[in-house]
Each structure stands twice: as C-alpha cells, then as structure tokens.
C-alpha cells in the first residue's frame, strides 16, 4: 500500500505536498491527521506543524484485475484482461488469449470459480460494492443461447408429459437465464430447489389437476 507522512504549516498545505509526491488526486486518498498545527507565540515560538498520513486508496477493480491476471498466468496461460464498465457497479472482465478452454472449463466451471474468487477480492474492503462478470471467447453469450434452447426444449417435454423436470445444478446467474426464458411460456412454471452449490431449476407443468 502506498502511503506518505508529511508535515506542513497547515493540513491543507501538507495534503497538497503529499498529493504532489504521490501524484494522485484528492479523491484517490485517505487522510489521517496525526498532529493538528498550532500557532505559537509571535507566530513561531512553540508553533507546531501539521502532520498527516496520506494513504492511496486501493481501487477494487484494479486489485481484482491484478489478482486474476496473476492466477491465470500461474495456471500457465498467457492472457490479457480488458475491463468494461457496464453499469454503476457492474464490470465485465474480458479475458483474451490463446487456448482459453482451460480458463473456461467444463460448462464454465473454471470461469465461474475464477469469477467467484475475483469478486471476493474486489469486495474485500468494506466500502467496495462491485459485481464483476468474467468472460472469455464469448462464452457467456454462447452459454445463454444454449440455456435458452435447453429451457424451451425441456418446457416442450414437460407440456407433453405433464411431469416436472429438474435441470442440472447451475450458479444463480445461469438459473436466472432459464427462469427468464420461460416466464411467459403458457402452462409452464419454474422454480429452484436445493442448496448452493447444488441448487437447480425445476421446470414444471402449471395446471396440474
């Protein structure tokens, strides 16, 4: 963590000095006043300078990016991570490189694990509240299309058999895709059952007798 302790005639003066040293703006730092300045007799006898400690705030997004980059590198894969801000607190980390199949994993398992860890790191400091979605090789879009197709196909089957079908366990953002895909479909209702990480969507027939 980058920090400096500086003194000056006043807190403002010391802060100005510190920001110049750290080369950051005021909203990027935390300031702690260690000693208030005192005006002495005749302006100098017994006067005390202000002493402040200035710490550069760690940006949660860049901390998370560094963390993820280091992990992927240690897995043995060369990659780059681009950051897209997609909402107030929502970010997308786009991983690019060759052979990212390992980073994605079977049914996105590895990508979801990395996403979970990355979000934990980003939200470690109490004032951070961000959501990061990881993507590589357009996996999220491909998976969304596949899930919507699966949802429709399963709904057709449920309508014929009038028997509920439980899908395989999925993380919450994937379950949401299934719920959304079938929310306006006639005669079909969906709900989730089980505990994380084995929570799964059930597609059921609505008008059972």
């Amino acid at each position, binding site marked *: 963590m980058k920090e400096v302790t500086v003194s000056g005639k006043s807190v403002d003066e010391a802060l100005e000095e510190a920001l110049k040293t750290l080369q950051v703006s005021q909203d990027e730092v935390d300031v702690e006043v260690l000693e208030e300045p005192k005006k002495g007799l005749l302006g100098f006898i017994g006067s005390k300078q202000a002493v402040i400690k200035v710490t550069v705030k760690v940006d949660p997004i860049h901390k998370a990016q560094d*963390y993820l980059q*280091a*992990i992927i590198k*240690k*897995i*043995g*894969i060369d990659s780059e991570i681009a950051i897209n801000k997609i909402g107030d607190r929502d970010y997308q980390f786009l991983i690019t490189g060759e052979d990212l199949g*390992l*980073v994605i*994993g079977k049914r996105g*398992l*590895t990508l*979801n*694990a*990395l996403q*979970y*860890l990355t979000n*934990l*790191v980003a939200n*470690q400091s109490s004032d951070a509240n961000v959501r990061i979605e990881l993507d590589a090789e357009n996996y999220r879009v491909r998976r969304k299309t596949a899930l919507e197709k699966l949802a429709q196909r399963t709904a057709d089957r449920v309508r014929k058999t009038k028997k509920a079908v439980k899908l395989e366990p999925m993380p919450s953002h994937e379950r949401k895709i299934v719920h959304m895909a079938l929310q306006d479909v006639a005669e079909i209702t969906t709900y989730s059952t089980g*505990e*994380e*990480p084995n929570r799964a969507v059930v597609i059921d027939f609505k008008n059972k007798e």
Partner: protein
Amino acid sequence: MDELIKGIVAPFVDHPDDVRVVREQNNDEVTYILTVNKADMGKVIGKKGRMASAIRTVVHAAGLAHHEKATLTIRE
C-alpha cells in the same frame, strides 16, 4: 502450482507466512496439501465451502494445463 495455490489464498488470510503447500504423488494422481493457520481455516473454506470448491476447481484446471490429475486437500 505451489505459487498458484498460495497466490489464490494470499489475499484472504491473516497469516500469509503460515501458508504451505506440499505435493504428494500417488501413481498418476497428484494431491496438493494446503496448510493454513488455524485462524484462517474458515476463510479458506468459505461460506458453505464455496471458496474451497472454487480453489479446487482452479487447481484442477491448472493440473490439466500441466498434464497431471491434480486434487487439493486443505488442512490446518
């Protein structure tokens, strides 16, 4: 792989000096034994074991990259 596992847990533990990784080879399977300070055990396992499961998934992927079948055990 040792560096990978240490790197994954580093931001979450209060006692980084107590983090150790030992490699155990049995035939074609490799088990990595992660030891952390007792006080950090809960953090490394996480809510409902989600952290432990995420670490295992990443270790497994890294194993595939190095052509080994890698599993992870966590001990205090």
